[in-house]
């Protein structure tokens, strides 16, 4: 009667610290230039060394420019973060994937594609979207800088075991409905704290039918439900994805690992602290209208009015959100003009996402006055897309084709959506100022973002036909 959470958690317990707290072994650490650099500096100043450097992997993603031809110092304030991460990794014997090398990219895109993220492993990073890696059945979660130093120095963490939650997506989504739509719908339905204190297992027919990349898109937004961990039970799809990746076990060792990974499923009679069931067949392409990921609606719905909010605090918050977003309640969200389009981020920058966006862009043109960026999630994604000619499709349609990194998802590298501009974005957060001070973000899937680019407005991609 064990849940998948039990099967991921319990084998990593080194000691019971009492009252639901455990000393937990960490199998993988991912480091990026924003928090990893800080952790490296802290380690140096305290005279600490990495306890298990071969279990850690570093790459710059947050504060590096994504402009074509960029270098580590192209964004001035990021230069010391990039070089500090590189030097800290070298000092500690940690593999570092530099700009232009396979392995460079958004850490949560890099980990899975390099075979670093494996089912049944515990994986941490100083980054809340570490839950993305749960798409392969890893227990992956974000931590702060102090905990990051702790884990680098000891390879363990003191953690409280979260409660177990399961979200089942039953049925199959209709045409034009992507994994992003499923998860945006979910956050809208149960709220930005609907999973707080829980680890979320995503299950059900719609999840099983997804490729690993789509599962990662859904796990990526577990944190937008308040859950720092989200995961999907690994299956044949997962094993096929991992086979042959550079850091994955090979040959006989791979077979041995797969045999162990097959047990990583919730037992039939497992009991969850919370369970949510979503009818995937009833989910429409979904977009955000406000400043919290819980502010989502179907693309064919009307912008909600504060009076419809469930309580007084939310009524006030919805009013402020509409003001910030410059939207009028009651009008259809479709048709809202956009100034910018961003296709990228650890949510939606993998090759499958770019293929979906390219299918919409092919033979069309970016609408006049719209600036549209494609930022591949990693060097490997970029090269694959170029091998398939997707860069030519995008460039031909008037998109900009850029270098891998976090870019406009988090605006930590000087790249920003201008104040007051409205951006259709495949990222994960529509917070106030997230894409730049005063920027207005609408979250959506890659095909929907491409549709916004070519029409110049928020558009139901199903009406375009791909």
């Amino acid at each position: 009667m064990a849940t998948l959470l039990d099967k991921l958690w319990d084998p990593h317990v080194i000691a019971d610290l009492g009252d639901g707290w455990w000393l937990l072994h960490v199998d993988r650490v991912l480091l990026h230039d924003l928090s990893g650099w800080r952790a490296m500096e802290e380690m140096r100043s305290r005279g600490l060394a990495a306890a298990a450097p071969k279990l850690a992997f570093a790459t710059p993603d947050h504060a590096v420019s994504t402009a074509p031809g960029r270098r580590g110092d192209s964004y001035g304030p990021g230069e010391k973060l990039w070089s500090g991460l590189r030097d800290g990794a070298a000092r500690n014997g940690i593999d570092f994937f530099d700009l232009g090398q396979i392995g460079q990219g958004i850490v949560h895109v890099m980990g899975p594609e390099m075979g670093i993220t494996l089912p049944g492993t515990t994986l941490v990073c100083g980054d809340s979207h570490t839950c993305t890696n749960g798409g392969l059945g890893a227990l992956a979660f974000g931590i702060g800088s102090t905990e990051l130093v702790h884990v680098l120095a000891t390879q363990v963490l003191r953690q409280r075991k979260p409660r177990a939650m399961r979200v089942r997506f039953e049925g199959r989504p209709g045409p034009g409905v992507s994994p992003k739509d499923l998860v945006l719908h979910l956050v809208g339905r149960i709220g930005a704290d609907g999973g707080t204190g829980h680890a979320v297992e995503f299950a059900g027919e719609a999840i099983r039918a997804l490729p690993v990349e789509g599962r990662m898109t859904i796990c990526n937004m577990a944190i937008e439900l308040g859950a720092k961990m989200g995961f999907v039970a690994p299956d044949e799809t997962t094993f096929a994805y991992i086979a042959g990746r550079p850091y994955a076990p090979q040959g006989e060792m791979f077979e041995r690992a797969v045999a162990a990974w097959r047990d990583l499923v919730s037992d039939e009679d497992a009991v969850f602290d919370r369970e949510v069931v979503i009818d995937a067949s009833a989910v429409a392409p979904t977009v955000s209208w406000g400043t919290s990921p819980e502010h989502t609606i179907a693309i064919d719905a009307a912008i909600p009015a504060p009076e419809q909010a469930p309580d007084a605090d939310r009524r006030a918050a919805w009013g402020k959100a509409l003001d910030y977003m410059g939207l009028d309640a009651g009008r259809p969200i479709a048709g809202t003009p956009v100034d910018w389009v961003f296709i990228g981020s650890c949510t939606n920058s993998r090759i499958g996402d770019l293929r979906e966006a390219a299918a919409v862009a092919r033979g069309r043109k970016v609408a006049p006055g719209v600036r549209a960026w494609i930022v591949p999630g990693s060097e490997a994604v970029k090269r694959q897309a170029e091998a398939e000619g997707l860069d030519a499709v995008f460039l031909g349609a008037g998109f900009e084709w850029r270098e891998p990194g976090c870019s406009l998802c988090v605006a930590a590298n000087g790249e920003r959506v201008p104040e007051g501009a409205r951006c259709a974005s495949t990222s994960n957060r529509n917070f106030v100022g997230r894409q730049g001070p005063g920027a207005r973000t609408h979250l959506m899937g890659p095909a929907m973002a491409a549709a916004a680019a070519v029409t110049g407005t928020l558009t139901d991609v199903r009406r375009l036909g791909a």
Partner: protein
Amino acid sequence: MTPFTTVTGAAAPLMQPNIDTDVIIPIHRLTGTARETMGQFAFEPLRYGADGAENPDFILNRPAFRGAPILIAGANFGCGSSREGAVWALRGVGLRCVIAEGFGDIFQGNCYQNGMLPVTLSARTVEELARQAVQGAPFTVDLINRMVISPGGTSYPFDIPPLRREALLEGLDELAQTRKRLAEITTWQERDQETRPWVWRHLPQATKEGST
């Protein structure tokens, strides 16, 4: 870490739900600001206007709440990004305690690493406290007895994991605590290398011809 025992002072009510760590400290302040000076950018999008001038309506800019050590916040405070700078910024404006119905999990963990006490109380109690806080009268948060005491003298008990309480009271450094267990960790790792060799990169059998 600075210990936390009791704190007395104004409690600033900021009852908007879902205040995220991007609002608590904008990302571009993380790349170029020393940890000790992040307080100047705490709540930057709310605290300052577009021209950089203070927004007089923002609660921490009002005379009664400048330097308040306690914040009473809307639900899901500190959701979003894992940036520990959010806690450093709050500490930098003098806050030692945040009271809310719930917190972002990662933010809450970061509070405990920095001598900041997150107090979780029911929505109804938080609303009640916020109403009593509007004039700036002093509250006391007593971690020893696990009580929030309102200006009128009413006590509101709260729960906190005993390990976290002890660490805050004593100002314990988690890393120093864990380092006492290094032998236990090593023993565990040696056993794990036999049961899950594929996790351990340095084991030659874990990779094909040492290809990595």
